[in-house]
């Protein structure tokens, strides 16, 4: 990891929904080749921040660049330079592996020649050459996740956002997935990942923990454990994110306001 090159810069990022502040003056940088863990309780404001960084939602204020592009004015370039994968939405279940690859390659404007070359490499690496024409729905969850990750980086983005990528798989498959993440980071890609598995937080180079719209802590797992005198990241998380009701009602007010805006 090269600590010198920031690929995401966030200065004073604020996002308000009416009177509710989902992101309250966030400040951080993410470096090239880094695995950056983005943690927080449900409703702490992670998804809001991630949507802004992916160019899907404009911040209320602040200076934010992703891959060198401005999230207010250059959202198209931001989107071209990132990959995104989540547990909830990744591939089209009713299309085959090959069709999914063609679809994503098409969206990112990859030439047919290039796609064919890369597709072969990818299927070979995943050992899925004979499964090329199978529907995604017929694959085991672990394969789907590895495939979804590989397709999310098919257009060779600088940064990959992984939103709870590993739910529901067995412990060996989960670790194989992390091997993919390490490999991509070693190749210089930046990995921005959210997870509820606290042991996975330990695999990150640095971890930020959001509490009620703010970044309550940001450091290497080692330093966080020292700072909060905990044996593991679970302990750190529990100490920081202990809250009763407040962020829950936060989620509520956000939803309510969204609804009011529509009407």
């Amino acid at each position, binding site marked *: 990891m090269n600590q010198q090159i920031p690929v995401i810069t966030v200065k004073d990022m604020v996002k308000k929904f009416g009177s509710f502040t989902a992101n309250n003056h966030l400040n951080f940088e993410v470096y090239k080749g880094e695995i950056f863990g983005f943690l927080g*309780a*449900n409703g702490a404001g992670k998804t809001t921040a991630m949507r802004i960084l992916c160019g899907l939602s404009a911040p209320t204020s602040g200076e934010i660049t992703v891959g060198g592009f401005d999230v207010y004015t250059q959202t198209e370039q931001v989107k071209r330079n990132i990959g995104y994968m989540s547990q909830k939405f990744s591939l089209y279940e009713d299309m085959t592996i090959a069709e999914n690859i063609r679809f994503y390659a098409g969206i990112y404007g990859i030439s047919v020649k290039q796609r064919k070359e890369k597709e072969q490499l990818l299927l070979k690496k995943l050992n899925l050459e004979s499964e090329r024409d199978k529907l995604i729905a017929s694959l085991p969850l672990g394969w789907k996740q590895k495939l979804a990750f590989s397709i999310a980086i098919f257009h060779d983005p600088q940064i990959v956002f992984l939103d709870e990528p590993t739910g529901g798989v067995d412990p060996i498959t989960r*670790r194989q997935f992390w091997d993919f993440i390490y490999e991509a980071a070693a190749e210089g890609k930046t990995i921005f990942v959210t997870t509820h598995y606290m042991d996975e937080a330990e695999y990150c180079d640095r971890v930020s923990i959001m509490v009620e719209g703010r970044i309550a802590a940001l450091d290497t797992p080692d330093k966080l454990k020292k700072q909060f005198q905990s044996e593991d990241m679970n302990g750190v*998380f529990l100490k920081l994110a202990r809250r009763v009701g407040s962020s829950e009602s936060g989620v*509520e007010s956000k*939803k309510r306001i969204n609804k009011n805006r529509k009407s």
Partner: protein
Amino acid sequence: MIKVKNISKAYNKAEALKNISLEVKKGELFGLIGPDGAGKTTLMRILMTLLIQDEGKAEMSGFDVVRDYKKIRRLVGYMPGRFSLYQDLTVEENLEFFATVFGTSIAENYELIKDIYVQIEPFKNRLAGKLSGGMKQKLALSCALIHKPEILVLDEPTTGVDAVSRKEFWDMLKKLQNQGITILVSTPYMDEAGLCDRVALMQKGEILRIDSPARIVENYPRKLLAARSEEMYRLINDLRAWKKVETAYAFGQFAHVTPVDDAMEAVELEHYLMSKKHQKLQVFETNPGIEDVFMGLMSEYRE
């Protein structure tokens, strides 16, 4: 309290449960631990009388799940994996509905749900569909408890929930257990196994092991070493490349290493890693966790 004997169930050709047997004692907090596709939900649905097994027998509190399904439904509480309350009824209306269906009232069993329900009571006039995840979970639990069940069955109540809410939820389950309720709960989070009295480790329709979490860990048959250096990814690759290493997997900030020969000492592994020029090395023998056991059993069953 729960007896499962040689239960099998297939969906067309997919075998969801393969000859499963287990018993849960009265007052026990019993966990079904395993990834998606292990058969946890299928087993629970059979016990809840919502699905009929192909083979085998199961009893809940002495009643047969096929013959006595009506009796069983009165004495069990069920919290399915998917939120299944009425989204267009309010919090209070949902609770009242479930109480009425079981011929009771909120007031009659309020003591049992009080600790949980007070947390959502300020929102009792809100539609259930408009609740946040954590509040939905508490309402679903309240509704599953309102008829004072003998047995409570919860299908992955903590999946996708953050670590703080998970801890709160397990605290609630402990309290319910202390009130004498027998609890069967499933989870894909291996670290939650330690919170149960006994667990069944499940994988692809089979039970790999049933025991208390402590004994499962104690009976781990292999030597386990932990290693760490400044470069985790290179460390794991170097470990896997060495013929004396059987498996190497990341565990938090360490790699857990199972050597081919159980007689290997930490110092031998350390020498090897030093020869690969790893910095800030730490290598020592370590105690396995539930995940180590699970992964060990998985590879055994694969062979």
